[in-house]
C-alpha cells in the first residue's frame, strides 16, 4: 500500500476559523494508508513547503495530499515542491477545503466534517494515481502560412526573421491579397501599394521563406509539431525559373479577358501577370482562356518567349511538406453583389462595390485614377455611397458589422471629392463606427469640411432610371423619404470569409463561428490561437478587420509560433485517455465522442487506439465506452467510484 502523507493548511485563520484543523489531522491520521499527517499555518510559504519536502524524504511518502485552497491556486506550487525531492508531481493532490468548505460554511462542526470528507475523497483518488510524466513530442521547427495577403505576409516575415523556415502558400498567382488592390489607406492616406510592395519583395528574397504561389493546401494530417501537409501547385504553364517577365508574350496573345485583380473593370490577356508589382514576378497562362493549351490552335506566346519559359505540358504537382505549426490567414471577400437583389442584383455596371471603387481610385488602375463610371466612362457627378450593404441585416443578409466599411466609405467620399471637385458624394449610413486611432478625426474631417452629405438611414432600392440610377432611401433624422438620381452607386458590401475557405477549414478541421469565420481558442485571452493545437489565426479569416489590426494580429500569431518553436520539446499533459486492448471490443463509439479526432481504429487488432498527442483529456470517450476499456489517466472510473464512496461516508 502506498505511504500517504497529508498536510492540512490553516491558511492563517482562513481555514482554521471554521475548520478544526487539529481534528482533521487527528481523524485523517488514522485513515488507512496515511502514515503521516500534520498541519501548518501557511503550507504555501517557504517553511511550509520545506516541511512537506522533509516529510516526503523522512517518511518515504509515495503520495501527498495538501488540504488547503483551490488547486487552481497552488497545485502547481506543491507539485513543483514534490518533484524537487523526487516525488512524481502527479502523486501530489490538493483537497480544496478553503474555497469549497471553510469560506462557504459557518458551523465549525459541519465544516470540519466536510473538510474531512473532502480530504478523504482526495486520498482515495491519490491512492490509485499513477506516476506520470508529461508527454514530450519532437517538433518540426518549420511553419506553414496559408494565405499571402498582408496577414500572411506579416506572419511569414516575423517567423522567418526569427530564424525559422516558413512555407507561404497563396492560391492566386501573386501574393498581396486585397491590400494590393487598395488605393490609399485610411486615415493617413498612405498609398497602399507603396507600403505593401517592399514587404512583398522581402518575401520573395527571404532565405528562410519558401513561397508557393498559385498553390493550395489540399490536406493536412498529423498533429501539433508534426503536420504533414499536401500542397497542390497549380500549373502556370510558364517555367518559374526561366520567365523574366519581359512582357513580350502579352503583345502577341490574342485572347482578352476581364482581369480579376481589377475586379473586371480592366482586362488582361490569357497569359498575364495580375499587376505590375506582382510577386513572384512571373507570367501565368489562364488555362480556361488560353487557346493553345488543349486544341493546339495558337502558340504565339511560346514563339516569342526568348528564355523559352512557356510550357504547355506543365502538370499540377503535389508538394508534401512537414511543418510544426500552421498560421491560417485566408482573409475575406466581399459579399457578392448578386446577393443584394434590392440593390441591382449585381447586374447593373454602375452599381459597384468598395473594391471596384478602390481600383477606380488607384493610379495604376484601369482608369489611371480618373473616376469614370463603368457603363459609359462618364465622370460621375453624383455618387451615392451605401454603407452596411448587406451588413447588420440578420433577416436577409449578414448579421454582423464588417467593421472597416465606415472608414473606407469616408475615405472613398473624400478621395472622390478630391478627384471630382464639382461632384457631390452622399453617404447613407446606419451608424458611423470609428473606433481606431485617428479614425474619428478623419470622419469629422470628411463629414464637416469636405462637403460630403451624410444621410442617416437605409437605402431600400436602387434601379436604373434613364441615364442615371434612382436611389430610394430614407433620412431618419428628418423622417423624410429621400430620392437621389445618381450617376454611380458604391455599395460598402459586408465582408465574408474568402471563397473556398469553408472547404479549407473543414479540411483542416478548424472550428468556425456561425458566419464561417474561424473561431479563436478564447475570444479575450487566446485571440490568435485556434482550438486545435498547432493552428494560429491571422487577419480577416477570423472576422473582418482593418490593416493595422491585421498586422498586429499576424505579429501575435507569429510570436506564438516562435514561442512554440523556441521550446526544446513540445510538452503535453499526460491526463489522457488510454485503452485496455484486452477489453476493447472495437465498437468505435469513442471515435464519435472524441472532439479532437484523437482516436483511430486499428483494423488488424480490431481495437481503437488513442493518439495521446491529440488527446486533450476531456474524458468524454471514457464515459461513452460501454466496456470500460477506456480510462482517463488519474481520473479512472475506479478512482471516481472510491471518491463517491467516501463522499457518501463509507
Amino acid at each position: 500500500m502506498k505511504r500517504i502523507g497529508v498536510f492540512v493548511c490553516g491558511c492563517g485563520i482562513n481555514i482554521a476559523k471554521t475548520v478544526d484543523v487539529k481534528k482533521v489531522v487527528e481523524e485523517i491520521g488514522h485513515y488507512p494508508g496515511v502514515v503521516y499527517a500534520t498541519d501548518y499555518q501557511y503550507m504555501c510559504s517557504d517553511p511550509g513547503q520545506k516541511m512537506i519536502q522533509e516529510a516526503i524524504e523522512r517518511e518515504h511518502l509515495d503520495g501527498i495530499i495538501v488540504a488547503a485552497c483551490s488547486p487552481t491556486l497552488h497545485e502547481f506550487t506543491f507539485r513543483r515542491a514534490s518533484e524537487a525531492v523526487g516525488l512524481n508531481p502527479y502523486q501530489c493532490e490538493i483537497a480544496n477545503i478553503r474555497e469549497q468548505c471553510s469560506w462557504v460554511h459557518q458551523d465549525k462542526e459541519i465544516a470540519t466534517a466536510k473538510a474531512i470528507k473532502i480530504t478523504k475523497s482526495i486520498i482515495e483518488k491519490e491512492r490509485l494515481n499513477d506516476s506520470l510524466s508529461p508527454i514530450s513530442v519532437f517538433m518540426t521547427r518549420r511553419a506553414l502560412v496559408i494565405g499571402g495577403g498582408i496577414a500572411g505576409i506579416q506572419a511569414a516575415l516575423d517567423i522567418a526573421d526569427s530564424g525559422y523556415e516558413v512555407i507561404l502558400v497563396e492560391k492566386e498567382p501573386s501574393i498581396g491579397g486585397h491590400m494590393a488592390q487598395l488605393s490609399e489607406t485610411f486615415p493617413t492616406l498612405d498609398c497602399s501599394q507603396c507600403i505593401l510592395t517592399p514587404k512583398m519583395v522581402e518575401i520573395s528574397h527571404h532565405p528562410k521563406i519558401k513561397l508557393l504561389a498559385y498553390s493550395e493546401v489540399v490536406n493536412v494530417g498529423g498533429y501539433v509539431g508534426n503536420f504533414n501537409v499536401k500542397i497542390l501547385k497549380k500549373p502556370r504553364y510558364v517555367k518559374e525559373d526561366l520567365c523574366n517577365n519581359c512582357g513580350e508574350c502579352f503583345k502577341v496573345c490574342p485572347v482578352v479577358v476581364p482581369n480579376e485583380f481589377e475586379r473586371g473593370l480592366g482586362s488582361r490577356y490569357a497569359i498575364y501577370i495580375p499587376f505590375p508589382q506582382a510577386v513572384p514576378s512571373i507570367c501565368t497562362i489562364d488555362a480556361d482562356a488560353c487557346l493553345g493549351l488543349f486544341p493546339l490552335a495558337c502558340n504565339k506566346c511560346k514563339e516569342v518567349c526568348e528564355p523559352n519559359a512557356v510550357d504547355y505540358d506543365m502538370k499540377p504537382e503535389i508538394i508534401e511538406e512537414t511543418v510544426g505549426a500552421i498560421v491560417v490567414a485566408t482573409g475575406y471577400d466581399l459579399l457578392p453583389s448578386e446577393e443584394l437583389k434590392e440593390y441591382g442584383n449585381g447586374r447593373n455596371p454602375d452599381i459597384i462595390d468598395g473594391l471596384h471603387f478602390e481600383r477606380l481610385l488607384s493610379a495604376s488602375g484601369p482608369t489611371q485614377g480618373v473616376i469614370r463610371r463603368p457603363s459609359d466612362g462618364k465622370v460621375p457627378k453624383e455618387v451615392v455611397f451605401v454603407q452596411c450593404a448587406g451588413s447588420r441585416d440578420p433577416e436577409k443578409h449578414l448579421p454582423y458589422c464588417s467593421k472597416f466599411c465606415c472608414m473606407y466609405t469616408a475615405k472613398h467620399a473624400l478621395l472622390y471629392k478630391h478627384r471630382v471637385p464639382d461632384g457631390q458624394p452622399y453617404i447613407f449610413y446606419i451608424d458611423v463606427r470609428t473606433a481606431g486611432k485617428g479614425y474619428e478625426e478623419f470622419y469629422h474631417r470628411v463629414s464637416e469640411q469636405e462637403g460630403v452629405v451624410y444621410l442617416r438611414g437605409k437605402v431600400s432600392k436602387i434601379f436604373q432610371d434613364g441615364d442615371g440610377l434612382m436611389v430610394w432611401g430614407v433620412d431618419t433624422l428628418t423622417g423624410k423619404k429621400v430620392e437621389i438620381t445618381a450617376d454611380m452607386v458604391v455599395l460598402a458590401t459586408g465582408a465574408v470569409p474568402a471563397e473556398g475557405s469553408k472547404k479549407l477549414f473543414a479540411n483542416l478541421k478548424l472550428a468556425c463561428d456561425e458566419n464561417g469565420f474561424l473561431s479563436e481558442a478564447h475570444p479575450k485571452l487566446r485571440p490568435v490561437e485556434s482550438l486545435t493545437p498547432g493552428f494560429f489565426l491571422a487577419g480577416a479569416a477570423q472576422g473582418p478587420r482593418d490593416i493595422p489590426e491585421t498586422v498586429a494580429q499576424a505579429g501575435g500569431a507569429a510570436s506564438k509560433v516562435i514561442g512554440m518553436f523556441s521550446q526544446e520539446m513540445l510538452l503535453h499533459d499526460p491526463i489522457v485517455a488510454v485503452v485496455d486492448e484486452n477489453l476493447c471490443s472495437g465498437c468505435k463509439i469513442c471515435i464519435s465522442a472524441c472532439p479532437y479526432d484523437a482516436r483511430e481504429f486499428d483494423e488488424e487488432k480490431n481495437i481503437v487506439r488513442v493518439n495521446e498527442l491529440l488527446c486533450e483529456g476531456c474524458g468524454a470517450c471514457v464515459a461513452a465506452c460501454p466496456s470500460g476499456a477506456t480510462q482517463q489517466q488519474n481520473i479512472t472510473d475506479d478512482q471516481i467510484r472510491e471518491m463517491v464512496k467516501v463522499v457518501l461516508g463509507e
Partner: protein
Amino acid sequence: MKLPYYPGCTLKDRTSQLETTALACAEKLDVQLEEMPNWTCCGGVYPVSETKIVNLVAPFRILKEVQEAGDDKLVTICDFCYNVLKRTNLIIREDSVKRTRLNLFLSDDDRRWAASGRRVGEGQEYDGGVKVLHYLEMLRDELGFEAVAAAVSKPLEDLKIAPYYGCNLLRPPLEMDLDDPEDPRIMEDFLGSMGAQVVEFPYRIECCGSFLSLSSPQIARRLCHTILESARKNGADAIMLSCPMCFYNLEQKQSEFARHFPGFRPMPVFFFSQLLALALGLDPASLGFERNFADPVPLLKEKHLV
C-alpha cells in the same frame, strides 16, 4: 392531372374573365381544375390582418374540406385568396394553440369528440398539410413552363410585356415563399415560355395602393400612374398582372387618370391568363377584353395576334 380549385368571390363577379380564361387554358393544358364544393369567401384581408382567431375560421374550413376530400393540393387564381389561404395554413402548422382551437371549433360535436376519448390534437384534425398553389405556381412546379411552351400555338413574339407582381403574390416573403421577393422570375419565365418579349421595369414589385383606392384614391392613383409610366418608359406595350385588386387599380381606374394626369395615354393591362389563352390559340373574342377600360384589341391587331 386533376387538382381541386378554389375560385373566391371576385372571380365570380368583377373579374370573371380571369377565371374563365384560366379554366379554359387549364383544359387546353390537360389540367382538370375541379371547383371545390361548398366553398366560401376566404375572408379577404381580415384573417391575417388581425389576431382574432375567429377570422381564421373561414380559410381554415376551406383547407380542412380539401384535406377531408382526400386532396393534398389546392389551386387558387386570385392573389388575395392565395395569400390568405397560404398564410392561414402556415399559422395552422406553426401555432398549435390556434390549430387546436380551430379544430375544436369546427368539430361536428364536441361531446362526441369528448366521448371518443381522443385528446384534442388527435384524430381527424386539420394540420396544415394542404399545399396551396397559385395558378402560376401550378404551371411552374406541377406542369412546368416547358410544357406550357410546348402547347403554345400562337407565340406572342412581338408583344413587349411588363410583368407586374404587386405585393400579395410575394410578400411577406418567408410565409409566401413563391419566389425571390426582391428579384422574382416566375412571371418573366412564364412570359418567356409564351415567346413574349419581357420588359423589366423597376416598379414591378411596388405596391399599387390596394384598398387605398377606396379611402385615399389620390394616393393609389399616384402610385399606379408611376407604375404605368415606368413600364411605358422602359418600352412596354402592355402590363401583365395576376391580382384582381391590382387590375382594378391599374386598369379600371385608368378612366380617371386623364383628368388628373394631363397627357396620360391609356395602357392595356392583361391578366396572365388572358395572354396564356391568346398564346394557346383560344378565341380572342372569348377573353373578356370588353371589360377593359384600355382596349387591348388595337395593340393585338397591330401585332397580328387577333
